Protein backbone atom coordinates (compact mmCIF):
# COMPACT_ATOMS: atom_id res chain seq x y z
CA UNK A 1 0.00 0.00 0.00
CA UNK A 2 1.35 3.42 -0.97
CA UNK A 3 1.76 6.22 1.53
CA UNK A 4 -1.04 8.70 1.79
CA UNK A 5 0.16 12.30 1.68
CA UNK A 6 -3.30 13.80 1.97
CA UNK A 7 -6.28 12.19 3.62
CA UNK A 8 -9.66 13.90 3.68
CA UNK A 9 -12.58 12.41 5.62
CA UNK A 10 -16.15 13.60 5.96
CA UNK A 11 -15.26 17.17 5.02
CA UNK A 12 -18.11 19.67 5.21
CA UNK A 13 -18.07 23.35 4.44
CA UNK A 14 -20.87 25.84 3.93
CA UNK A 15 -20.99 29.58 3.36
CA UNK A 16 -24.13 30.93 4.97
CA UNK A 17 -26.97 28.84 3.61
CA UNK A 18 -24.91 27.46 0.78
CA UNK A 19 -23.63 23.94 1.45
CA UNK A 20 -20.59 23.59 -0.76
CA UNK A 21 -18.87 20.44 0.49
CA UNK A 22 -21.17 17.86 2.02
CA UNK A 23 -18.95 15.13 3.34
CA UNK A 24 -15.96 14.74 1.04
CA UNK A 25 -13.58 11.76 1.27
CA UNK A 26 -10.37 11.86 -0.72
CA UNK A 27 -6.87 10.37 -0.65
CA UNK A 28 -3.76 11.53 -2.41
CA UNK A 29 -1.04 8.88 -2.62
CA UNK A 30 2.64 9.58 -2.78
CA UNK A 31 3.91 10.31 -6.26
CA UNK A 32 0.57 10.32 -8.05
CA UNK A 33 -1.22 13.00 -10.04
CA UNK A 34 -4.83 13.18 -8.96
CA UNK A 35 -7.20 15.15 -11.14
CA UNK A 36 -10.25 16.74 -9.52
CA UNK A 37 -13.05 17.55 -11.92
CA UNK A 38 -16.31 19.28 -11.28
CA UNK A 39 -18.42 22.05 -12.63
CA UNK A 40 -17.98 25.68 -11.76
CA UNK A 41 -19.01 26.47 -8.21
CA UNK A 42 -18.85 22.86 -7.05
CA UNK A 43 -16.27 23.73 -4.41
CA UNK A 44 -13.01 22.53 -5.94
CA UNK A 45 -11.08 25.64 -4.99
CA UNK A 46 -12.63 25.61 -1.53
CA UNK A 47 -11.42 22.03 -1.06
CA UNK A 48 -7.77 22.76 -1.74
CA UNK A 49 -7.86 26.05 0.16
CA UNK A 50 -8.91 24.06 3.22
CA UNK A 51 -5.88 21.81 2.68
CA UNK A 52 -3.49 24.76 3.13
CA UNK A 53 -5.49 26.42 5.88
CA UNK A 54 -6.69 29.40 3.86
CA UNK A 55 -10.22 28.33 4.77
CA UNK A 56 -11.36 26.23 7.72
CA UNK A 57 -13.83 23.39 7.46
CA UNK A 58 -17.03 23.16 9.45
CA UNK A 59 -16.72 19.42 10.01
CA UNK A 60 -14.48 16.55 9.08
CA UNK A 61 -10.78 15.93 9.00
CA UNK A 62 -8.03 16.99 6.59
CA UNK A 63 -4.64 15.42 7.15
CA UNK A 64 -1.71 16.66 5.11
CA UNK A 65 1.58 14.79 5.51
CA UNK A 66 0.09 13.19 8.59
CA UNK A 67 -0.91 16.42 10.30
CA UNK A 68 -4.44 17.61 11.00
CA UNK A 69 -4.41 21.04 9.35
CA UNK A 70 -7.13 22.55 11.50
CA UNK A 71 -5.26 21.87 14.71
CA UNK A 72 -1.90 23.34 13.73
CA UNK A 73 -0.74 26.55 15.38
CA UNK A 74 0.43 29.28 13.08
CA UNK A 75 4.08 28.30 13.24
CA UNK A 76 3.43 24.67 12.43
CA UNK A 77 0.97 25.67 9.73
CA UNK A 78 3.60 27.85 8.08
CA UNK A 79 6.08 24.99 8.16
CA UNK A 80 3.55 22.74 6.51
CA UNK A 81 2.71 25.36 3.90
CA UNK A 82 6.32 25.50 2.80
CA UNK A 83 6.04 21.85 1.78
CA UNK A 84 3.04 22.58 -0.40
CA UNK A 85 3.14 24.41 -3.70
CA UNK A 86 -0.13 26.19 -4.39
CA UNK A 87 -0.75 27.39 -7.93
CA UNK A 88 -3.67 29.82 -7.76
CA UNK A 89 -6.61 29.95 -10.13
CA UNK A 90 -6.03 33.71 -10.46
CA UNK A 91 -2.25 33.04 -10.68
CA UNK A 92 -1.65 35.70 -8.00
CA UNK A 93 1.74 36.98 -9.10
CA UNK A 94 2.64 40.08 -7.08
CA UNK A 95 2.06 42.75 -9.67
CA UNK A 96 4.23 45.38 -8.03
CA UNK A 97 7.28 43.11 -8.29
CA UNK A 98 9.37 41.82 -11.19
CA UNK A 99 9.49 38.13 -12.08
CA UNK A 100 12.76 37.82 -10.19
CA UNK A 101 11.35 39.47 -7.07
CA UNK A 102 8.24 37.30 -7.29
CA UNK A 103 10.37 34.18 -7.28
CA UNK A 104 12.66 35.48 -4.54
CA UNK A 105 9.78 36.39 -2.26
CA UNK A 106 9.23 32.93 -0.71
CA UNK A 107 13.00 32.42 -0.54
CA UNK A 108 14.13 35.54 1.27
CA UNK A 109 11.29 35.24 3.75
CA UNK A 110 11.80 31.60 4.63
CA UNK A 111 15.43 30.70 4.10
CA UNK A 112 17.39 32.72 6.63
CA UNK A 113 20.80 34.03 5.64
CA UNK A 114 20.65 32.89 2.05
CA UNK A 115 23.40 34.43 -0.10
CA UNK A 116 22.75 36.34 -3.28
CA UNK A 117 24.56 33.75 -5.36
CA UNK A 118 22.45 30.91 -3.96
CA UNK A 119 19.32 32.94 -4.50
CA UNK A 120 20.17 33.71 -8.12
CA UNK A 121 21.02 30.08 -8.75
CA UNK A 122 17.67 28.86 -7.41
CA UNK A 123 15.69 31.54 -9.24
CA UNK A 124 17.42 30.84 -12.52
CA UNK A 125 17.05 27.13 -11.94
CA UNK A 126 13.27 27.19 -11.64
CA UNK A 127 12.99 29.64 -14.51
CA UNK A 128 14.95 27.21 -16.66
CA UNK A 129 12.57 24.43 -15.61
CA UNK A 130 9.58 26.39 -16.85
CA UNK A 131 11.48 27.68 -19.89
CA UNK A 132 11.15 31.40 -19.20
CA UNK A 133 14.59 32.58 -18.19
CA UNK A 134 14.34 35.53 -20.60
CA UNK A 135 11.48 37.11 -18.62
CA UNK A 136 13.46 37.43 -15.39
CA UNK A 137 13.41 41.22 -15.27
CA UNK A 138 9.91 41.77 -16.63
CA UNK A 139 6.81 42.78 -14.72
CA UNK A 140 3.91 40.29 -14.56
CA UNK A 141 1.73 42.73 -16.52
CA UNK A 142 4.11 42.39 -19.47
CA UNK A 143 3.67 38.61 -19.72
CA UNK A 144 1.08 36.59 -21.60
CA UNK A 145 -1.48 34.48 -19.74
CA UNK A 146 0.41 31.26 -20.41
CA UNK A 147 3.72 32.77 -19.34
CA UNK A 148 2.14 34.04 -16.13
CA UNK A 149 0.82 30.54 -15.33
CA UNK A 150 4.31 29.17 -15.77
CA UNK A 151 5.88 31.83 -13.57
CA UNK A 152 3.19 31.12 -10.98
CA UNK A 153 4.17 27.45 -11.04
CA UNK A 154 7.86 28.37 -10.90
CA UNK A 155 7.27 30.47 -7.80
CA UNK A 156 5.75 27.50 -6.01
CA UNK A 157 8.62 25.22 -7.08
CA UNK A 158 11.34 27.37 -5.62
CA UNK A 159 11.02 25.91 -2.14
CA UNK A 160 10.99 22.36 -3.54
CA UNK A 161 7.53 21.33 -2.34
CA UNK A 162 6.47 17.76 -1.71
CA UNK A 163 2.90 18.37 -2.76
CA UNK A 164 1.64 20.51 -5.62
CA UNK A 165 -1.91 21.85 -5.76
CA UNK A 166 -2.84 23.27 -9.16
CA UNK A 167 -6.07 25.26 -9.36
CA UNK A 168 -7.16 25.22 -13.00
CA UNK A 169 -3.72 25.47 -14.53
CA UNK A 170 -5.02 25.52 -18.10
CA UNK A 171 -8.12 27.71 -17.76
CA UNK A 172 -8.35 30.41 -20.39
CA UNK A 173 -5.42 29.22 -22.49
CA UNK A 174 -5.32 28.09 -26.12
CA UNK A 175 -5.05 24.32 -26.77
CA UNK A 176 -1.37 24.41 -27.66
CA UNK A 177 -0.38 26.38 -24.57
CA UNK A 178 -2.58 23.99 -22.58
CA UNK A 179 -0.51 21.09 -23.83
CA UNK A 180 2.65 22.94 -22.80
CA UNK A 181 1.32 23.43 -19.30
CA UNK A 182 0.22 19.80 -19.13
CA UNK A 183 3.71 18.72 -20.05
CA UNK A 184 5.13 21.08 -17.48
CA UNK A 185 2.94 19.49 -14.80
CA UNK A 186 4.20 16.04 -15.73
CA UNK A 187 7.75 17.26 -15.88
CA UNK A 188 7.47 18.86 -12.43
CA UNK A 189 6.09 15.62 -11.08
CA UNK A 190 9.14 13.73 -12.32
CA UNK A 191 11.84 16.33 -11.68
CA UNK A 192 10.70 17.36 -8.22
CA UNK A 193 9.11 14.07 -7.15
CA UNK A 194 5.87 15.70 -6.10
CA UNK A 195 2.42 14.35 -5.47
CA UNK A 196 -0.13 16.60 -7.10
CA UNK A 197 -3.77 17.50 -7.14
CA UNK A 198 -4.81 19.10 -10.40
CA UNK A 199 -8.14 20.88 -10.56
CA UNK A 200 -9.51 21.31 -14.00
CA UNK A 201 -12.53 21.50 -16.29
CA UNK A 202 -10.43 20.40 -19.18
CA UNK A 203 -10.62 16.69 -19.97
CA UNK A 204 -7.57 16.75 -22.21
CA UNK A 205 -5.57 18.12 -19.34
CA UNK A 206 -7.11 15.49 -17.09
CA UNK A 207 -6.25 12.66 -19.43
CA UNK A 208 -2.69 13.79 -20.10
CA UNK A 209 -1.69 14.65 -16.55
CA UNK A 210 -3.83 12.46 -14.32
CA UNK A 211 -3.09 9.02 -12.94
CA UNK A 212 -6.48 9.04 -11.29
CA UNK A 213 -9.67 11.10 -11.59
CA UNK A 214 -12.17 12.22 -8.97
CA UNK A 215 -15.37 13.98 -9.95
CA UNK A 216 -16.96 16.36 -7.46
CA UNK A 217 -20.75 16.20 -7.80
CA UNK A 218 -23.13 18.00 -5.49
CA UNK A 219 -20.63 18.34 -2.68
CA UNK A 220 -19.31 14.76 -2.66
CA UNK A 221 -16.99 12.75 -4.88
CA UNK A 222 -19.40 10.92 -7.18
CA UNK A 223 -16.95 8.97 -9.26
CA UNK A 224 -13.31 8.04 -8.78
CA UNK A 225 -10.85 5.93 -10.70
CA UNK A 226 -8.80 5.88 -13.86
CA UNK A 227 -9.85 8.03 -16.79
CA UNK A 228 -11.45 5.23 -18.84
CA UNK A 229 -13.18 3.83 -15.82
CA UNK A 230 -14.71 7.15 -14.85
CA UNK A 231 -15.69 8.42 -18.26
CA UNK A 232 -16.02 5.74 -20.89
CA UNK A 233 -18.16 3.60 -18.66
CA UNK A 234 -19.85 6.48 -16.91
CA UNK A 235 -23.21 5.56 -15.46
CA UNK A 236 -23.96 8.82 -13.69
CA UNK A 237 -25.62 11.06 -16.32
CA UNK A 238 -23.87 14.27 -15.25
CA UNK A 239 -20.45 12.65 -15.49
CA UNK A 240 -21.34 11.33 -18.91
CA UNK A 241 -22.54 14.70 -20.12
CA UNK A 242 -19.38 16.29 -18.77
CA UNK A 243 -17.43 13.92 -20.98
CA UNK A 244 -19.60 14.25 -24.07
CA UNK A 245 -19.67 18.01 -23.87
CA UNK A 246 -15.89 18.33 -23.57
CA UNK A 247 -15.27 16.26 -26.65
CA UNK A 248 -17.97 17.79 -28.80
CA UNK A 249 -16.24 21.06 -28.14
Amino acid at each position, binding site marked *: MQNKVIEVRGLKKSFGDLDVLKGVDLDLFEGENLVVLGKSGSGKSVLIKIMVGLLTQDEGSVKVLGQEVKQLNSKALNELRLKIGFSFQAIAL*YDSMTVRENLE*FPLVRNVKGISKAEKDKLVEGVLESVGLIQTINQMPSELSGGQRKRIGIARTLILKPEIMLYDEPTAGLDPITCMDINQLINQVNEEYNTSSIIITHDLTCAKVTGDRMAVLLDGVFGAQGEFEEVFQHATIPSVKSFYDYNFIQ
Partner: protein
Amino acid sequence: MANNTVAPKSGLRRRIENFFIGLASAYRFVERFFKEVWFPPYEFKELIRQCYQIGYNSLPLISLTGFIVGVVFTNQSRPSLAEFGATSWLPALISIAVVRAMGPLVTALIAAGKVGSSIGAEIGSMKVTEQIDAMEVSATNPFKFLVVSRVLASTFMIPVLVMYTDFVALMGAFLNVNQNELVSMSTFFVQVFDAISFLDISSSLLKSLVFGFTIGIVGCYKGYNSTKGTEGVGKAANSAVVMAMFLIFIEELLALQITNFFRQL
Protein backbone atom coordinates in the same frame (compact mmCIF):
# COMPACT_ATOMS: atom_id res chain seq x y z
CA MET B 1 -26.93 32.55 -4.88
CA ALA B 2 -26.89 32.37 -1.13
CA ASN B 3 -28.87 35.56 -0.79
CA ASN B 4 -31.80 34.29 -2.80
CA THR B 5 -32.68 31.75 -0.18
CA VAL B 6 -32.59 34.21 2.71
CA ALA B 7 -35.94 35.76 3.57
CA PRO B 8 -35.78 39.44 2.60
CA LYS B 9 -35.45 41.73 5.59
CA SER B 10 -36.81 45.23 5.67
CA GLY B 11 -34.35 47.72 4.17
CA LEU B 12 -33.85 49.77 7.30
CA ARG B 13 -33.32 46.82 9.57
CA ARG B 14 -30.74 45.35 7.25
CA ARG B 15 -28.94 48.66 7.03
CA ILE B 16 -28.73 49.03 10.76
CA GLU B 17 -27.54 45.44 11.06
CA ASN B 18 -24.92 45.94 8.37
CA PHE B 19 -23.75 49.10 10.07
CA PHE B 20 -23.05 47.29 13.31
CA ILE B 21 -21.50 44.31 11.56
CA GLY B 22 -19.21 46.74 9.75
CA LEU B 23 -18.37 48.52 12.97
CA ALA B 24 -17.47 45.27 14.71
CA SER B 25 -15.25 44.12 11.87
CA ALA B 26 -13.51 47.52 11.71
CA TYR B 27 -12.91 47.31 15.43
CA ARG B 28 -11.38 43.85 15.07
CA PHE B 29 -9.15 45.12 12.28
CA VAL B 30 -7.81 47.99 14.38
CA GLU B 31 -7.39 45.65 17.34
CA ARG B 32 -5.40 43.25 15.17
CA PHE B 33 -3.14 46.09 14.10
CA PHE B 34 -2.33 46.95 17.70
CA LYS B 35 -1.72 43.30 18.48
CA GLU B 36 0.64 42.70 15.59
CA VAL B 37 2.57 45.94 15.48
CA TRP B 38 4.74 45.14 18.51
CA PHE B 39 6.02 41.68 17.58
CA PRO B 40 8.60 40.55 15.04
CA PRO B 41 9.11 39.93 12.21
CA TYR B 42 9.34 43.66 11.52
CA GLU B 43 9.02 44.57 7.88
CA PHE B 44 11.53 47.42 7.87
CA LYS B 45 12.28 47.32 4.18
CA GLU B 46 8.63 47.50 3.25
CA LEU B 47 8.11 50.29 5.80
CA ILE B 48 10.86 52.42 4.28
CA ARG B 49 9.52 51.77 0.80
CA GLN B 50 6.04 52.84 1.87
CA CYS B 51 7.32 55.97 3.62
CA TYR B 52 9.11 56.96 0.48
CA GLN B 53 6.05 56.30 -1.67
CA ILE B 54 3.68 58.20 0.58
CA GLY B 55 5.99 61.17 1.03
CA TYR B 56 7.26 61.41 -2.48
CA ASN B 57 3.97 60.83 -4.26
CA SER B 58 2.11 63.48 -2.31
CA LEU B 59 4.81 66.13 -2.56
CA PRO B 60 3.88 67.91 -5.83
CA LEU B 61 0.19 68.16 -5.00
CA ILE B 62 0.82 69.27 -1.43
CA SER B 63 3.35 71.89 -2.52
CA LEU B 64 0.88 73.41 -4.92
CA THR B 65 -2.14 73.38 -2.61
CA GLY B 66 -0.14 74.54 0.41
CA PHE B 67 1.23 77.49 -1.50
CA ILE B 68 -2.15 78.47 -2.93
CA VAL B 69 -3.83 78.20 0.46
CA GLY B 70 -1.20 80.55 1.91
CA VAL B 71 -1.63 83.14 -0.83
CA VAL B 72 -5.42 83.02 -0.96
CA PHE B 73 -5.95 83.04 2.78
CA THR B 74 -3.66 86.07 3.18
CA ASN B 75 -5.38 87.91 0.40
CA GLN B 76 -8.87 87.23 1.72
CA SER B 77 -8.02 88.18 5.31
CA ARG B 78 -6.45 91.51 4.38
CA PRO B 79 -9.64 93.58 3.86
CA SER B 80 -11.13 92.67 7.24
CA LEU B 81 -7.92 93.58 9.04
CA ALA B 82 -7.53 96.71 6.94
CA GLU B 83 -10.91 97.96 8.24
CA PHE B 84 -9.32 98.24 11.68
CA GLY B 85 -6.00 99.40 10.28
CA ALA B 86 -4.52 96.18 11.59
CA THR B 87 -2.84 94.70 8.51
CA SER B 88 0.37 94.48 10.50
CA TRP B 89 -1.28 91.58 12.33
CA LEU B 90 -1.47 89.54 9.12
CA PRO B 91 1.64 87.39 9.77
CA ALA B 92 0.41 86.47 13.25
CA LEU B 93 -3.10 85.69 12.05
CA ILE B 94 -1.85 83.55 9.17
CA SER B 95 0.63 81.77 11.36
CA ILE B 96 -2.01 80.72 13.84
CA ALA B 97 -4.49 79.70 11.17
CA VAL B 98 -1.96 77.68 9.19
CA VAL B 99 -0.25 75.89 12.06
CA ARG B 100 -3.33 75.20 14.15
CA ALA B 101 -5.82 74.26 11.51
CA MET B 102 -5.19 74.67 7.83
CA GLY B 103 -1.85 72.92 7.48
CA PRO B 104 -2.94 69.65 9.10
CA LEU B 105 -6.39 69.71 7.55
CA VAL B 106 -5.30 70.47 3.99
CA THR B 107 -2.50 67.91 4.14
CA ALA B 108 -4.71 65.22 5.63
CA LEU B 109 -7.50 65.75 3.12
CA ILE B 110 -5.13 65.63 0.20
CA ALA B 111 -3.36 62.58 1.58
CA ALA B 112 -6.74 60.92 2.15
CA GLY B 113 -7.45 61.41 -1.54
CA LYS B 114 -4.05 60.47 -2.81
CA VAL B 115 -2.62 57.98 -0.31
CA GLY B 116 -5.86 56.52 1.05
CA SER B 117 -7.24 55.72 -2.37
CA SER B 118 -4.01 54.18 -3.59
CA ILE B 119 -3.68 51.99 -0.49
CA GLY B 120 -7.33 50.94 -0.83
CA ALA B 121 -6.97 50.12 -4.51
CA GLU B 122 -3.63 48.35 -4.15
CA ILE B 123 -4.64 46.12 -1.28
CA GLY B 124 -8.09 45.61 -2.78
CA SER B 125 -6.66 44.36 -6.04
CA MET B 126 -4.21 42.14 -4.19
CA LYS B 127 -7.14 40.69 -2.31
CA VAL B 128 -9.33 39.93 -5.31
CA THR B 129 -6.48 38.48 -7.37
CA GLU B 130 -5.55 36.17 -4.48
CA GLN B 131 -2.13 37.79 -3.97
CA ILE B 132 -2.86 38.09 -0.26
CA ASP B 133 -3.66 34.36 -0.12
CA ALA B 134 -0.46 33.71 -2.05
CA MET B 135 1.54 35.54 0.59
CA GLU B 136 -0.13 33.55 3.29
CA VAL B 137 0.70 30.20 1.69
CA SER B 138 4.31 31.24 1.29
CA ALA B 139 4.36 31.57 5.08
CA THR B 140 4.38 35.36 5.16
CA ASN B 141 1.94 37.19 7.36
CA PRO B 142 0.21 39.47 4.84
CA PHE B 143 -1.31 41.60 7.59
CA LYS B 144 2.14 42.50 8.81
CA PHE B 145 3.73 42.85 5.44
CA LEU B 146 0.96 44.94 3.87
CA VAL B 147 -1.18 46.51 6.57
CA VAL B 148 1.19 47.20 9.45
CA SER B 149 3.86 48.68 7.19
CA ARG B 150 1.41 50.96 5.38
CA VAL B 151 -0.35 52.17 8.49
CA LEU B 152 2.95 52.95 10.21
CA ALA B 153 4.28 54.68 7.11
CA SER B 154 1.30 56.95 6.81
CA THR B 155 1.28 57.64 10.56
CA PHE B 156 4.92 58.80 10.40
CA MET B 157 4.77 60.59 7.10
CA ILE B 158 1.65 62.73 7.49
CA PRO B 159 3.20 64.83 10.30
CA VAL B 160 6.30 65.31 8.15
CA LEU B 161 4.13 66.40 5.26
CA VAL B 162 2.18 68.71 7.56
CA MET B 163 5.36 70.53 8.59
CA TYR B 164 6.25 70.86 4.97
CA THR B 165 2.78 72.18 4.08
CA ASP B 166 2.98 74.70 6.93
CA PHE B 167 6.27 75.93 5.56
CA VAL B 168 5.05 76.19 1.95
CA ALA B 169 1.82 77.91 2.97
CA LEU B 170 3.75 80.43 5.09
CA MET B 171 6.06 81.09 2.13
CA GLY B 172 3.01 81.77 -0.03
CA ALA B 173 1.68 84.10 2.62
CA PHE B 174 5.04 85.81 2.91
CA LEU B 175 5.21 86.53 -0.83
CA ASN B 176 1.78 88.07 -0.69
CA VAL B 177 2.53 90.15 2.43
CA ASN B 178 5.91 91.12 1.06
CA GLN B 179 4.35 92.52 -2.10
CA ASN B 180 1.55 94.39 -0.41
CA GLU B 181 2.91 95.50 2.94
CA LEU B 182 6.63 95.50 2.02
CA VAL B 183 7.48 93.39 5.09
CA SER B 184 10.91 91.74 5.00
CA MET B 185 11.36 88.00 5.38
CA SER B 186 12.98 88.20 8.81
CA THR B 187 10.29 90.49 10.20
CA PHE B 188 7.61 88.24 8.76
CA PHE B 189 9.00 85.09 10.31
CA VAL B 190 9.72 86.71 13.67
CA GLN B 191 6.06 87.66 13.84
CA VAL B 192 5.03 84.19 12.67
CA PHE B 193 6.97 82.43 15.42
CA ASP B 194 5.94 84.92 18.07
CA ALA B 195 2.31 84.14 17.42
CA ILE B 196 2.47 80.39 17.91
CA SER B 197 3.13 78.51 21.11
CA PHE B 198 4.57 75.12 21.93
CA LEU B 199 1.05 73.88 22.51
CA ASP B 200 0.08 74.92 18.98
CA ILE B 201 2.92 73.01 17.39
CA SER B 202 2.69 69.91 19.53
CA SER B 203 -1.08 69.62 19.24
CA SER B 204 -0.85 70.10 15.50
CA LEU B 205 1.69 67.30 15.17
CA LEU B 206 -0.20 64.97 17.48
CA LYS B 207 -3.34 65.59 15.49
CA SER B 208 -1.42 64.83 12.30
CA LEU B 209 -0.28 61.51 13.70
CA VAL B 210 -3.90 60.61 14.27
CA PHE B 211 -4.85 61.76 10.76
CA GLY B 212 -2.03 59.68 9.31
CA PHE B 213 -3.10 56.60 11.24
CA THR B 214 -6.68 57.12 10.10
CA ILE B 215 -5.75 57.39 6.44
CA GLY B 216 -3.58 54.29 6.58
CA ILE B 217 -5.90 52.07 8.54
CA VAL B 218 -9.05 53.04 6.64
CA GLY B 219 -7.33 52.44 3.28
CA CYS B 220 -6.05 49.06 4.42
CA TYR B 221 -9.35 48.04 5.99
CA LYS B 222 -11.35 48.88 2.90
CA GLY B 223 -8.84 47.14 0.64
CA TYR B 224 -8.56 44.06 2.82
CA ASN B 225 -12.33 43.67 2.89
CA SER B 226 -13.06 44.45 -0.71
CA THR B 227 -15.36 42.07 -2.51
CA LYS B 228 -14.55 40.04 -5.56
CA GLY B 229 -14.16 41.66 -8.94
CA THR B 230 -12.76 44.88 -10.32
CA GLU B 231 -15.86 46.74 -9.20
CA GLY B 232 -15.03 45.81 -5.62
CA VAL B 233 -11.58 47.36 -5.97
CA GLY B 234 -13.02 50.63 -7.24
CA LYS B 235 -15.49 50.68 -4.39
CA ALA B 236 -12.74 49.98 -1.87
CA ALA B 237 -10.66 52.90 -3.12
CA ASN B 238 -13.63 55.21 -3.21
CA SER B 239 -15.01 54.40 0.19
CA ALA B 240 -11.52 54.57 1.69
CA VAL B 241 -11.35 58.23 0.67
CA VAL B 242 -14.86 59.12 1.77
CA MET B 243 -14.52 57.37 5.10
CA ALA B 244 -11.07 58.82 5.84
CA MET B 245 -12.18 62.38 5.04
CA PHE B 246 -15.25 62.02 7.21
CA LEU B 247 -13.21 60.71 10.14
CA ILE B 248 -10.61 63.44 9.70
CA PHE B 249 -13.22 66.14 10.18
CA ILE B 250 -14.61 64.42 13.25
CA GLU B 251 -11.10 64.11 14.69
CA GLU B 252 -10.40 67.76 13.92
CA LEU B 253 -13.45 68.71 15.94
CA LEU B 254 -12.36 66.52 18.85
CA ALA B 255 -8.81 67.86 18.70
CA LEU B 256 -10.20 71.39 18.90
CA GLN B 257 -12.07 70.55 22.10
CA ILE B 258 -9.04 68.90 23.63
CA THR B 259 -6.60 71.71 22.85
CA ASN B 260 -9.08 74.30 24.05
CA PHE B 261 -9.20 72.45 27.32
CA PHE B 262 -5.41 72.58 27.62
CA ARG B 263 -5.31 76.25 26.63
CA GLN B 264 -7.56 77.11 29.57
CA LEU B 265 -5.24 75.43 32.08
